[in-house]
Structure formats: structure tokens, C-alpha cells
């Protein structure tokens, strides 16, 4: 039996793993892929202390390498469910069941969809949630970015170097992104802002091979609908937590509720990073979560270790 199983190998999970191993816990991280975490898809990270400017994938590789050096063990597998038997946690995976004394859920989140007509059927045909993956397909084309936070503005800037024209559509009259990002975006000659507006439909071309052709947005000031000819649309309207595997208390959107030690409604199960209900879904907060949960888990395990021998 492991002391601690961490489900998810993004920044929060790896930080938890580093703290747990260094504190002497027999720890295993379970992850679906070798490089995970939404941050791996970020073009550039500029708000993580110690790294003025680094690509998301490079930072993620540094985390992973650090974790390996410390001795964190990782298994590539898909976790199907998590249950409790007395003081024992059972983690069911596609390669069998694993047991531990405590579990940290670090399953992260995926981009939230707009849920408008045309979106789902045009994914990979011009609808995207990842500019660094799909941006190069839109060289000298026209694209729209939906959202007004850091991810939207960062990726609008990334796309502005590839595409001929970038529209940034946001439902409020002000962007939420950090001022430094806003300043860069406002200074860009090929980013045009459509504020106070939301997308009502994404429309594809007709015929056997469909591609995004335009979108329809509603101007909240006038109440009128407008058509916008585009080749691609990149959507950044928040995140949806990956928390289906665990049956603990969650908020209405599925984010796991935690106490000040990041413990969930079940003793010995902790939640960290983007999958939990937090006021700030940021890399630096995810890493802090990992450290805190591993420390709390260590105390929890120590409290009944003798009984479980």
C-alpha cells in the first residue's frame, strides 16, 4: 500500500509529489500522459516567480525533471474511480486497483466550451481551444479569440504574429487580463477588439469538407446580431474541472470544495490546483496547493500510521 497516491501530474500534482517524497511518504503519481497540465499548452508564462519568460512546455519539463530527480514515481494510467474502505483509499485504474492511505486529487481542468450551435461539429475544423497547437494552421488568415482573461489575451497576442487579423470578442466592456498583457494587445496593429458582445453561433461552410466560415455575435449595447467572416475561432471562456472520478462535495460547476488544509469532504482525500474551488486558478497557486496538501496529508497519515501497519 502506498502512503499517498496523487491523481494528476500537472504542476499541482508534481509539487505535491516533490513535497511528499521529501517528507518520506511512499508516493505514486498517476497520470494519463507523460506531459500534462494545461500550462504545457501555454505559449509563454510570464507570471511565475524566477522565470521572467518561459514557454509552458519548457516549464512543465522542468517540473517533471525536478520531480524525477527527487525520486517521485509516476505511472501512466487512466484513473476510473476512487473509493474509501475504512482508512484505506482504493484508486481504480484501467490497469487495476491501487491502495493508499491518502489521496490528492490534482486532475486539473479542461477548457470550457461556449455551447453555441456549430461549436462541437467544427472542432478541428476551425474551432480550437489551443492556439499553440492549432495556431500555425491559420497563417495569414483571420481568426477570432473569445474571452477576456489572461489566456485569451496571451493567445490573441500569439495568434497576431501568425494570422493576418485577430478579433478579440469579450462579453464585458473591459478585459480581465493583466494590464501588461492588455497594453501589448491594444498596441498590436492587427488585433481588433469587439467588447460587450457574445458569440451566438459558429457557422461552417457547406459541402463534404466543412470548415469554420463565420461567427455570429450579439452586440449587447445595441442588441443586434452581427456576422463576422473568420477562418478559425479560439475559445477561452473558463475551465471545466475534471472531477467526475471522485465523489466528494463540489460546487455547482463541479469544482471540489476544500477546507483551509485542502482536505475535501472525505477525510484523507485532498484536492489541489485547477480542479478545486479556488479564487485564483493560476500556476503559482496550483504549486502552493500541492505543497500544502502534501504537508497536510503527511500529518493525516502519521496520525493513524501505527493502526494501519
Amino acid at each position, binding site marked *: 500500500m502506498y502512503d499517498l497516491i496523487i491523481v494528476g501530474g500537472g504542476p499541482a500534482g508534481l509539487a505535491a509529489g516533490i513535497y511528499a517524497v521529501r517528507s518520506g511518504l511512499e508516493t505514486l503519481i498517476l497520470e494519463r*500522459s*507523460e*506531459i500534462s497540465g494545461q500550462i*504545457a499548452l501555454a505559449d509563454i508564462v510570464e507570471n511565475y516567480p524566477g522565470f521572467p519568460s518561459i514557454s509552458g512546455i519548457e516549464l512543465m519539463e522542468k517540473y517533471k525533471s525536478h520531480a524525477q530527480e527527487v525520486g517521485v514515481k509516476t505511472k501512466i494510467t*487512466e484513473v476510473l474511480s476512487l473509493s474509501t474502505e475504512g482508512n484505506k483509499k482504493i484508486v481504480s485504474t*484501467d490497469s487495476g486497483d491501487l491502495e493508499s492511505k491518502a489521496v490528492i486529487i490534482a486532475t486539473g481542468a479542461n477548457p470550457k466550451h461556449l455551447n453555441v450551435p456549430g461549436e462541437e461539429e467544427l472542432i478541428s*475544423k476551425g474551432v480550437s481551444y489551443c492556439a*499553440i*497547437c492549432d495556431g500555425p494552421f*491559420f497563417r495569414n488568415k483571420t481568426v477570432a479569440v473569445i474571452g477576456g482573461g489572461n489566456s485569451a489575451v496571451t493567445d490573441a497576442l500569439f495568434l497576431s504574429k501568425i494570422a493576418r487579423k485577430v478579433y478579440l470578442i469579450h462579453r464585458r466592456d473591459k478585459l480581465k487580463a493583466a494590464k501588461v498583457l492588455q497594453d501589448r494587445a491594444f498596441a498590436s496593429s492587427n488585433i481588433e477588439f469587439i467588447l460587450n458582445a457574445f458569440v451566438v453561433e459558429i457557422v461552417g461552410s457547406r459541402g463534404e469538407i466543412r470548415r469554420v466560415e463565420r461567427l455570429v455575435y450579439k452586440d449587447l449595447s445595441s442588441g443586434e446580431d452581427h456576422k463576422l467572416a473568420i477562418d478559425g475561432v479560439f475559445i477561452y471562456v473558463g475551465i471545466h474541472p475534471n472531477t467526475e472520478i471522485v465523489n466528494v462535495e463540489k460546487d455547482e460547476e463541479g469544482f471540489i470544495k476544500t477546507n483551509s488544509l485542502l482536505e475535501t469532504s472525505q477525510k484523507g482525500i485532498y484536492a489541489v490546483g485547477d480542479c478545486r474551488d479556488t479564487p485564483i486558478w493560476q500556476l503559482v497557486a496550483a504549486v502552493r496547493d500541492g505543497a500544502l496538501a502534501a504537508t497536510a496529508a503527511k500529518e493525516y497519515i502519521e496520525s493513524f500510521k501505527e493502526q494501519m501497519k
Partner: protein
Amino acid sequence: MVKVTLVHASWCTACPAARRFWKDLKSEHDFEYEEVEVETPEGKALLEEYGIVGVPTTIIDGEVVFTGLPKKADAIAHIS
């Protein structure tokens, strides 16, 4: 036999995970598997044929089935 084609790109940070995923699945299940890089002539032809503008994209028996990293159960359902 089911044929799986993974379309990937050198710049795509999500693609290595998808390549690893399908290679691992290939070691457990019997299906035909190939990887095509988008900047090769074969890749460009696939982009044109299927209208693909996103990676990683998985084509199974001539149909675009997945974009991104699929869940294992979903992938198995499509190759079985």
C-alpha cells in the same frame, strides 16, 4: 482490420502524449496504426482531404474521430 491514423505536428505540445497513447494501445490491441506529420506531403494531403485544422487529430477508418487525447475507453470502443 481497423486503421488508425494519427495526424500530428512538430510544434504541437499536446501531440507527444497522443502518440504515446496510441502506441501503448497498439501494444495491447490489434489494429493498424500510422502517424502522419502535417508538414509532409502525405500530411498535407490528409489536411486537404479531411479539412483538418487542428492537431492531434485521429482518423479511424477514414473518419475524423478524435481531436486531442482521447479517453482510453472511447478509443477502445472505436478500434474494437
